[in-house]
């Protein structure tokens, strides 16, 4: 991830620049946020990932000051901002719809926040143009928002929220209004700007790719709670639950019980597989306990011949195959009846004579491919 962020200024330590302590939000009899606690480090880009209704937007709005916190506290740079109204917080938000003031020019839009602070006129002018240059919209200063494209409006919105040099920047589904085509490019551009400015940022998204591209760390939310928090790749490789494993990327889930429990490896027997699963690290769960095992599709190899060894393989038949551009997606029905998804890269497909639909195949995976889950 750090390759796309040259000169990334985040130190890597979550030193609690933003602290969310046991925050709860209740609307009537609906609990939207159920006691969330979180720390975000200075200059970190943090993503709240979850599907609709999970509470991420509510949490963001509480940070911005648009929703009252039912209980709990919010700290920013060691200042308790829980009861501060939005216009008194050193927090700025970029709205999903950008919310550019239609009756003002781009320049006036960006200058608005500075005017409220009482910044002197010439300073406003230089800061406004500094911000516009940062997002490369300097030439459009005199235009009205209705004359701009979606991408251009987004940049102006970003400039407007950065010009006040907030301690915390909030992004509400930043890419949702853009076409899929330009999303990736914009994500990278946005991160470059954020790193350059060095602002701490919390963003909300339902797009897991977006979170993984843009954030240093992310938290997966479901039903008002955080279910896992960590660096994106970490969350991907080591999901803490079936929910996270399925939500962040896709996976194959097997159920079984621990047959062999050693310090450096475990074996799990599952009805869904002909052979036991061998995982090359120890787990804290006791012998005999029922567990779930997650194996990502890209870790599963597809062969025509039976693999060697007694573990980590199974026999089945290709029920479906689809070309996804850069890889092929196999759906293989195993002898046990379970359907497994395998993703085979284009490269591998071109190097071998790959099986087709209807053929009998064997799947296998390495000892470090599986993650053991207990929930």
């Amino acid at each position: 991830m750090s390759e796309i962020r040259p000169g990334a200024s985040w130190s890597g330590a979550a030193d609690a620049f933003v602290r969310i302590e046991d925050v709860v939000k209740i609307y009537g009899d609906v609990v939207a946020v159920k006691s969330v606690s979180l720390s975000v480090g200075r200059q970190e880009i943090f993503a709240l990932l979850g599907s609709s209704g999970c509470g991420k937007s509510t949490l963001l709005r509480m940070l911005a000051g648009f929703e009252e916190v039912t209980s709990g506290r919010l700290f920013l740079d060691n200042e308790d901002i829980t009861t501060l109204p939005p216009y008194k917080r050193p927090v700025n938000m970029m709205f999903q719809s950008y919310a550019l003031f239609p009756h003002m020019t781009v320049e006036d839009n960006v200058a608005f926040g500075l005017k409220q602070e009482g910044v002197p006129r010439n300073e406003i002018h230089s800061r406004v143009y500094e911000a516009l240059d940062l997002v490369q919209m300097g030439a459009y200063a005199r235009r009205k928002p209705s004359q701009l494209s979606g991408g251009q409006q987004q940049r102006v919105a970003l400039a407007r929220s950065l010009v006040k040099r907030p301690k915390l920047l909030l992004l509400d589904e930043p890419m949702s209004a853009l076409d899929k085509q330009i999303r990736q490019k914009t994500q990278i551009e946005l991160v470059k700007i954020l790193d350059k400015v060095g602002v701490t940022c919390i963003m909300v998204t339902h797009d897991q790719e977006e979170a993984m591209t843009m954030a240093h760390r992310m938290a997966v939310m479901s039903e008002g709670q955080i279910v896992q928090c960590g660096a994106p790749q970490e969350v991907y490789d080591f999901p803490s639950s079936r929910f996270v494993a399925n939500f962040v990327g896709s996976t194959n889930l097997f159920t079984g019980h621990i047959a062999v429990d050693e310090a450096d490896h475990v074996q799990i027997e599952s009805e869904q597989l002909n052979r036991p699963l061998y995982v090359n690290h120890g787990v804290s769960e006791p012998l005999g306990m029922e567990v779930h095992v997650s194996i990502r599709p890209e870790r599963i190899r597809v062969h025509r011949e039976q693999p060697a060894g007694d573990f980590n393989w199974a026999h089945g038949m290709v029920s479906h195959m689809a070309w996804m551009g850069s890889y092929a997606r196999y759906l293989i029905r195993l002898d046990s009846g379970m359907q497994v998804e395998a993703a085979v890269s284009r490269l591998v497909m071109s190097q071998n004579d790959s099986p087709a639909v209807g053929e009998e195949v064997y799947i296998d995976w390495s000892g470090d491919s599986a993650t053991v889950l207990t929930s």
Partner: protein
Amino acid sequence: MAKPDFRLRALALGLGYLFLYGPILVLMVLSFNDSAMMTTWTGFSLRWYHELFSDRALLEAARLSIIIAAATATAAVAVGTWVGYVLARMGRFRGFGLFVGLASAPLVIPEVVLGISLLLMFVELSDLFGWEGSNGAFTIWVGHVILSMAYVTVIIQSRVRDLDRSLEEAALDLGAPPIKVFFQIVLPLIAPALLAAWLLAFTLSLDDVVIASFLTGPGHTTLPLEVFSRVRLGLKPEINALATIFMLLVALFVVIAHHVQNRKGPPK
């Protein structure tokens, strides 16, 4: 998708508009009739217009009415916008039903009810505070404001509800306290509605007979009161002239407003 039947549509709309505009056109045509009789056309003449403009009493009443109407419209927009904003943005609060009831009452309540209520209020007030002033332009103005406020509220409330809330939130987020948000963001964006509301309140005040009757005092007569007292007794041709001028002005105004609005882009 099936389009509505062309003939049915032409019939319904044609008859409807004929009904609405027939009498107006009749008046306009007759205002140029030399004869005082409605039914015989004796020639094209502007005499009724001359009579109209030399009628001091009528002109004086018109002057007073216009002043009251302008004052009414301004005050009604100020208060009505506040009420409309509360209805649109403050969600449900304690006593919401009562608030809505009072805010929309003048829309439906028969005007005589409103008239007597307000008059009694002024009477009791003068009793209580020993205020010796008699009723007149001031009391009429108050009455008209109460009446037209409800219409302003309807227009403004509807417009504010359609306003994207995130614009106000963005302004708050950028450091503007709620008052500034209202004046710098909301008001400019609902300006056309404010104008429409002002004009509607102006019209209502200018046309009111009942409330003015209850709340007027000696020496103060408004244009509609003057017209009403004359036409109660029968037809008066100079009134035709008055009506024509009135309607042409309004028509001209609406046409201009329509053009201006269309130039600005798709109407909201």
